[in-house]
């Protein structure tokens, strides 16, 4: 089995077809005129028109975007601190525990995270009177908790790649700890911060299970509305929505790649 054998090439191609065929069919059928999702009735954009007239979806999208924006920002702040603490602050008591807590939310089944946070919020409300009821705030806290883990891991691996000679030089030249952090460390890890923010934003926008547990009535997020629509079958409006979301992400990722390649060429 050499690395460029036909078998490898064939299975890689099959693998990529497996990854992309469902997405492509979803996009194609969003332009289908027929209500029956699989019967082709000619090209049409009527599902897009219906999508933008669906107030329930628009409202949910607004809630989700708001939650995702705040979550991503909070996650970056906490995640950068956590990543920095774990890779640059040496030993401290409880380091093993904190590093375990940081990676665990990444693989914890969502039903457990969701249930446990909901029970925490309910108990806290009973004991402290806060948070009163559940809503956007509780969703943001829950999302931040698992998204900061992703940011921390990204930042940590970026810091591990860079040796700390720049930081040491700055320290030798008399930089105080906070100016060292803001003037030296932060600029070097800025690519990791940007990708961490984007990842946190996407993950928050996408989460169904945790939001279902911790959100209150009247604060349904977009995935919750989508889930209730598709639970019992396919809905062409959702195809249209999916196409828009997939295209935005694809354009974003391709733009980021292109930007990075340009930078590499300059350097």
């Amino acid at each position: 089995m050499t690395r460029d054998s036909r078998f490898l090439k064939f299975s890689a191609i099959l693998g990529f077809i497996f990854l992309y065929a469902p997405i492509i069919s979803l996009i194609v059928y969003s332009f289908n005129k027929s209500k029956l999702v699989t019967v082709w009735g000619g090209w049409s954009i009527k599902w897009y028109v219906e999508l933008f007239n669906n107030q329930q979806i628009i409202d949910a999208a607004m809630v989700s975007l708001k939650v995702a924006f705040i979550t991503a920002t909070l996650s970056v702040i906490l995640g950068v601190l956590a990543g920095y603490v774990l890779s640059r602050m040496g030993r401290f008591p409880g380091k093993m525990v904190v590093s375990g807590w940081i990676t665990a939310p990444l693989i914890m089944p969502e039903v457990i995270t969701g249930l446990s946070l909901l029970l925490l919020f309910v108990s806290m409300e009973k004991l402290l009177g806060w948070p009163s009821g559940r809503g956007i705030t509780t969703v943001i806290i829950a999302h931040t908790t698992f998204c900061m883990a992703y940011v921390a891991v990204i930042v940590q691996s970026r810091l591990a790649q860079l040796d700390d000679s720049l930081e040491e030089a700055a320290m030798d030249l008399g930089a105080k700890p906070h100016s060292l952090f803001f003037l030296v460390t932060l600029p070097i890890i800025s690519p990791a911060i940007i990708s961490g923010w984007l990842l946190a934003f996407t993950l928050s926008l996408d989460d169904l299970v945790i939001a279902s547990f911790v959100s209150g009535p009247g604060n349904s997020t977009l995935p919750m509305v989508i889930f209730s629509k598709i639970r019992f079958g396919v809905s062409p409006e959702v195809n249209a929505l999916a196409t828009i979301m997939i295209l935005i992400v694809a354009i974003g990722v391709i733009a980021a790649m292109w930007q990075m390649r340009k930078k590499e060429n300059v350097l």
Partner: protein
Amino acid sequence: MSNVTGTFWLGHYNTIRTKFNLLKSIRWGRLSVISIPSVWLAIFFFIPFLVVFKISLAEPAIAVPPYTDLFVWDADNAIAEIKLKFGNYLYLWEDSFYLDAYLSSVKIAAVSTFFTLLIGFPMAYYIAGKKSSTRTLLLTLVILPFWTSFLLRVYAWMGFLKKNGIVNEFLQAIGLIDQPLQLLQTDFAVYIGIVYTYLPFMILPLYTTLEKLDGSLIEAAKDLGASPVKAFFLVTLPMCMPGIFAGCLLVFIPAVGEFVIPALLGASDTLMIGRVLWDEFFQNRDWPMASAVATVMLIILVVPIMFLRTGKNEEKQ
């Protein structure tokens, strides 16, 4: 003379003072930087598990929130009462429904992990063998679906596997089947869904180990007369073990607790523990039972999670 000594002492005093101030600022800064993320994680990640365990020992009640208190303070007799009900755990053990759900989740997760490895390995191997620019492109193609909505990707398979969906139409068109097959709402669809959504989690760690693989060892094996197949199984595969291990755990652990995939693609009798927990909570409104289910699931998952962590630490060293 005394003047010199004076300056000396003053200078010394100043250095000591600046050092002390610096030390103080570092200590406080350091403490707050360490404690902000740690405290957040302690409150919103660790304590919730204790709360889950606590509530799993309560009983459901018609109240807000819908469970009984564990601590009851009897003011008349000044007696504090602690009521711990282990009934939920007993019930989990006695009712074969739950045991079956746990076993079936582990089985579904294990089988899907195996197929994810089977599909992911050749892909990772192929990508790692390409030149740098192609590699970046192919890796982006692997990661891109991960950035698009998980829910919508599972939904895409609903349209794909339906009775009059594309797969059935295609199989009928090439004459392989006469009648459309029941693909959606089967265990088969759940396997496909898990393999599909978790494939990037398998490919990335595999790719990382394969990329670092020392090609000269494989060459050496071949020069010494090993057939390509033998060289693969005796040299390449053992060297990839850390990546295989990490990839499998990254797929297996979340797959055990999966809810969305069995809910959308599975049959109504596809038993998975994530779904059982969801139904206990949202349909039966039995919070203590849902907590007991979660606690046991966590205990089952602690071992693989530990394995993942020790594997990572060894890799670092």
